[in-house]
């Protein structure tokens, strides 16, 4: 143990992931653990993570590594990292590599690297927190309630952003709701808060426009869900008057873990393009793109972290679907080397392409 923390009491930190971080923080707090949440993703966090990590490794691993560091400085000594089973992708090595590089850098930490099976999750949590079975179930339920709420208001924001009368109101409300949500740690306060927050969001003054150009966001789950990592694609498109849809979120991922036949359905739909898994959510990207084309969308944005093997494998297939169907398509590969200005230029040009596509369709 670190000399400044002689007590063996675990102080938890974990991998940051967009707005979901709030739900994860609540989960650990409800288990009676002390939590120092990971630092918000900033350019400094990304730079420090990238400096420590192996160069040719996935971007999410570098970012989450950078997010731990300030929390570790503040006294956290235990890190939670999940490795996903099933998808053959490098995500399962994140824990092992992060533990190694952090220990090599002199951090004395207890690294809990566990598999995302109910049994493994339960055992790890039980061991570290010593909470009772019911306490764990209760904490998990509260966690899911918060998670569902976060996903719900993100979806509501996708709808109201392009329609709001006063530009920026949705995002102001969103920031406010998220910072209050973080403070709520009793389940009985949550229901009232949720109702009030949803009411506020519904009361945003919007222009009555049913039909707007629609863009589907597909790609790697961490990148599409974390607004700081994807340079706030959703917000930027929304403010340009484009309705963004995104199917990929934690609930989607968990549902697939619990109901494996979802994968079989996806495989059947993408059979003309790809006949096997490529790991991660590679198949899902193709499935979502085909789905959005069927729904008559006006554009697809494909986001992937640099070196993401599953998404790189499906990218040529997505390009082919784009050539066949004529739907505007933009694939953005993100990492610490990418400048926001370059992303903005591409997004702005893409918005013009999407608008043209939408206008030609409706005339």
């Amino acid at each position, binding site marked *: 143990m670190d000399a400044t923390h002689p007590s063996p009491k675990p102080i938890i930190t974990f991998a940051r992931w967009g707005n979901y971080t709030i739900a994860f923080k609540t989960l650990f707090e409800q288990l009676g653990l002390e939590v120092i949440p990971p630092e*918000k993703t*900033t350019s400094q966090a990304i730079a420090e993570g990238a400096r420590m990590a192996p160069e040719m490794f996935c971007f999410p691993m570098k970012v989450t590594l950078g997010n731990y560091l300030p929390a570790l400085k503040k006294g956290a000594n235990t890190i939670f990292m999940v490795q996903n089973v099933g998808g053959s992708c490098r995500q399962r090595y994140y824990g092992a590599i992060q533990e190694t590089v952090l220990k090599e850098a002199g951090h004395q930490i207890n690294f809990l690297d566990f598999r995302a099976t109910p049994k493994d999750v339960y055992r790890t949590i039980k061991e570290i927190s010593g909470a009772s079975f019911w306490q764990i179930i209760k904490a998990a339920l509260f966690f899911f309630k918060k998670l569902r709420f976060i996903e719900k208001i993100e979806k509501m924001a996708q709808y109201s952003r392009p329609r709001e009368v006063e*530009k*920026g109101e949705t*995002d*102001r409300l969103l*920031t406010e709701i998220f*910072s209050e949500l973080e403070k709520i740690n009793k389940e009985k306060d949550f229901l009232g808060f949720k109702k009030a927050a949803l009411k506020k969001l519904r009361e945003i003054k919007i222009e009555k426009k049913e039909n707007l150009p629609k863009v589907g966001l597909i790609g790697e789950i961490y990148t599409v869900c974390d607004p*700081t990592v994807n340079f*706030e694609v959703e*917000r930027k498109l929304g403010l340009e008057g484009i309705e963004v849809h995104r199917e990929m979120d934690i609930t989607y991922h968990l549902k697939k873990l619990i109901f494996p036949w979802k994968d079989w359905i996806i495989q059947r739909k993408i059979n003309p393009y790809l006949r096997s898994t490529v790991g991660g959510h590679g198949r899902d990207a193709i499935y979502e793109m085909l789905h959005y084309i069927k729904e008559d969308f006006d554009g697809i944005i494909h986001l992937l972290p640099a070196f993401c093997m599953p998404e790189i494998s499906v990218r*040529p297939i997505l*390009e*082919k679907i*784009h*050539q066949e169907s*004529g739907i*505007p*398509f933009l694939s953005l*590969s993100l990492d610490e*080397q*990418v400048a926001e*200005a*370059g992303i*903005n*230029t*591409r997004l*702005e*040009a*893409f918005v*013009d*392409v999407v608008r*043209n*596509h939408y206008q*030609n369709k409706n005339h």
Partner: protein
Amino acid sequence: MKCYLGIDVGSISTKFVLIDEENRILFASYFRTEGNPIEAIKKGLRELKDFIKTHNPGVDPHTKDYGVGVEIAGVGTTGSARYLAGVVTGADLIKNEISAHAKGVIHSIPEARTVIEIGGQDSKIIILENGVVVDFAMNLICAAGTGSFLDAQAFRIGVPIEKFGEIALTSKNPVIVASRCTVFAESDMIHKQQIGHSREDIIAGLCQGLARNFLNNVAKGKNIKPPIVFLGGVSENLGMRRAFADVLGEKVIVPEHNTVLGAFGVAILVKKNLPGKTKFRGFEISDRDIKCTSFICRGCPNLCEVIEARIEQKVVARWNDRCGKYSNLKYD
């Protein structure tokens, strides 16, 4: 006479274009940004002012005032420094360089299907269909094949960049230069020099390598159909023109005003979507003191780096914040 100004401030060069109501180019300038976009904008405005002063047919015969005939009715900016240029000049439209170039091409060559544009630091391909952009791509990380690299190589070989193309055309047997990456391209060129290949063969080989690199990296998977238009600073290079024609097996068209078509396009765009009155700050801006600074806002955990532009110590705009706390404030 109502005129529209298009300004394209890129990483290496700055372009100014003045058009009239009939989209005729009255004035075009192209010069190096030299790492200082604000100074480049001022310089461009000064040049334009002098041009209007000396060439303006509409000079008032009594007062001898210049600019009587020429009224700047709208300003549009594009290029990588478009926001800054927009703030400094008071632009009515700030447009990305892809849409701007596409517009410029559609006006000069309406039947064009493919646009290759290679500038100082970036290269892009635009696919057009019926005069509308349907697809595009830009180089993401690698700058191989862009103007800066050619510039550096010309300097290293000891050939002025203006002569680079002509020398390439004299080659009979272009050598094969590894061109996946600029660093490897350079070491491979040194190697080719040392085993005794002639200078023109190496230069021609480099041009072909860069054209291949562009098609493999930037234009990968894109549906390239003729007519193909070649734009940007690099399109001045005769060697690169021939290399693209060879590699693509198609005729490559280099239109008039090939280096300033982005500025031309944004001028047309501003003419089309004109607000009632232009926000142009006037030519006086070129004599003012303009400064940009940045600070980190600590209002929330986002920690945005807000950029602040001052003209004569007075804040005229702030941008780059996520919540709009600063950018939504009213500045005059």
